[in-house]
């Protein structure tokens, strides 16, 4: 029985930023677009504070600042200040005054008032399109961009789910998925999805894109020797571009040009030709910092007509108390995801029926998907009809999925050494106390005077006992009451 490892999956760009060094952050704040993007990621109270301080020339004390916030929002205000300080946007000085990071302040002012150079928000491609007169080359419209984003992103997801019709995505995609541990080399040939990969699939698209980009960032700085600041700036710039607009590659650094190629592969950017001087951001890119998750349905649904969008955006899954599941979708991808933990039964043109069975859920659990992930996927994709009920999902189903998970973990196994036959209770106690401080105790029983020690802790505990014995011998030479002898084996 596999133990389920819940790997902490860093999906949050905020967490990534927070872990950056102060000097890196300072460099980041030199780009107005980055300032704006980070500003958008802040909680609303923090945004309010930044705006209030932004154009103020007075020195502000921390006490005064707290006066701005109503008392009943203690935790919120703590959170806001904490975030601002961690990101070094707000700096607390020694004399208890508060100031905004100077470069952040300057650049953000510029960005809001329209001063300075605007390279930071992408450079529009101003020259008339050479081919626009002739019919041979059409300007890509938003539909085409959505289409491109959808195919490219789905290609990655399909590859991970292992749908047959897939052709393998680009090498850089493979590198990211293996580096991020979303997939691993299977013995023999090919790649195999890991439990982290399964968790990834159950997220919404916006989270997936960020998770993917963050992994790419790690990869970029480690293996491709890219400058993290340049890469991040580029991501944030993408977030502020306008959908359907064309931008010029001129003025981009070499690193950023290389990024452009990779991001084209992920469907964040569209370029008519590889050598094209223009690039178009897709919806995947422009919603990066807006927190707008409309892209979920756009990407996932196979025929992105307006009707379909509104339906899938609100969710499409109905779960009944008898474990039957109806999913109103025609997307191959969503069906594949459902197939991870459901037993598919019939497919119709606009829906599939499936059943949650013990076997299907166990299969998912054995792959490392947790019960709570399945439940949260079903909850977040629940059909609007389900929302009319007092509890979103039938409690029988939720409980049963959790029970199935518990059933898998009926045996907890630890390789260990059992220490027994202590001469006196005091000897037992001394050893137990020491082992407890080392944190290597698996099990202990006062009445039996037995201690189970992990394999890793065995050597140290053995050494401790030997030391005690030697000590006792040299103290009184009283060998009869010793904790006694060398541990066997």
């Amino acid at each position, binding site marked *: 029985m596999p133990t389920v490892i819940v790997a902490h999956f860093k999906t949050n760009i905020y967490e990534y930023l927070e872990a950056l060094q102060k000097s890196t952050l300072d460099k980041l704040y030199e780009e107005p677009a980055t300032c704006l993007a980070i500003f958008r990621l802040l909680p609303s109270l923090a945004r309010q504070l930044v705006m209030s301080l932004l154009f103020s020339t007075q020195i502000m004390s921390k006490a005064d600042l707290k006066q701005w916030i109503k008392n009943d929002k203690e935790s919120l205000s703590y959170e806001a200040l904490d975030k601002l300080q961690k990101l070094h946007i707000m700096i607390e000085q020694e004399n208890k005054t508060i100031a905004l990071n100077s470069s952040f302040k300057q650049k953000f002012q510029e960005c809001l008032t329209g001063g300075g150079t605007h390279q930071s928000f992408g450079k529009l491609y101003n020259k008339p399109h050479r081919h626009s007169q002739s019919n041979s080359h059409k300007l890509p419209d938003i539909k085409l961009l959505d289409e491109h984003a959808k195919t490219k992103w789905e290609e990655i997801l399909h590859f991970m789910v292992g749908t047959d019709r897939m052709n393998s995505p680009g090498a850089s995609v493979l590198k990211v998925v293996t580096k991020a541990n979303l997939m691993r080399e299977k013995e023999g040939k090919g790649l195999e999805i890991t439990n982290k990969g399964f968790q990834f699939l159950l997220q919404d698209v916006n989270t997936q894109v960020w998770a993917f980009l963050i992994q790419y960032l790690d990869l970029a700085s480690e293996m491709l020797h890219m400058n993290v600041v340049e890469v991040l700036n580029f991501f944030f710039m993408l977030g502020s571009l306008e959908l359907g607009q064309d931008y010029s590659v001129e003025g981009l650094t070499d690193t950023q040009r290389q990024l452009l190629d990779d991001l084209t592969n992920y469907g964040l950017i569209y370029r008519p030709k590889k050598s094209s001087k223009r690039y178009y951001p897709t919806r995947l890119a422009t919603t990066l910092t807006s927190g707008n998750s409309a892209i979920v349905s756009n990407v996932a649904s196979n025929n992105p007509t307006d009707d379909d969008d509104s339906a899938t955006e609100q969710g499409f899954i109905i779960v009944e108390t008898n474990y039957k599941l109806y999913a109103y979708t025609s997307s191959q991808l969503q069906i594949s995801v459902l197939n991870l933990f459901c037993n598919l039964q019939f497919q119709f043109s606009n829906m599939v029926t499936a059943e949650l069975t013990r076997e299907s859920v166990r299969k998912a659990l054995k792959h490392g998907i947790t019960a709570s992930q399945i439940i949260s996927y079903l909850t977040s994709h629940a059909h609007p009809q389900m929302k009319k009920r007092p509890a979103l999902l039938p409690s029988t189903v939720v409980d049963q999925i959790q029970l199935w998970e518990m059933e898998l973990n009926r045996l907890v196994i630890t390789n260990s050494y059992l220490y*027994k036959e202590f001469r006196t209770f005091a000897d037992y106690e001394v050893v137990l106390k020491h082992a407890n401080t080392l944190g290597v105790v698996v099990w202990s029983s006062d009445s039996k005077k037995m201690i189970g020690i992990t394999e890793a802790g065995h050597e140290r505990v053995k050494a401790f006992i030997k030391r005690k014995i030697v000590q006792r011998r040299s103290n009184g030479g009283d060998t009869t009451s010793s904790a006694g002898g060398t541990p066997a084996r």
Partner: protein
Amino acid sequence: MVKAVKGTIVKCDPAVKQVIISLDKKEKVIIEDLDENHLLIDTSRVDYIKKEVEKLLEENTYKSELDKAPN
């Protein structure tokens, strides 16, 4: 004299413990019965026990006829 015995400590519910005890009657696997939730067993037999326990629990799980029917 303190003794250290190498083995694997298994934490389980009492029902599973009984299953393992019954396995022990066929073939010796238990080194030490610790308490109602813990057993010390032979490390080399862990996989065998896991498999057997699963098999036994599987036999005692109700399956609806519908699940067995081909879809």
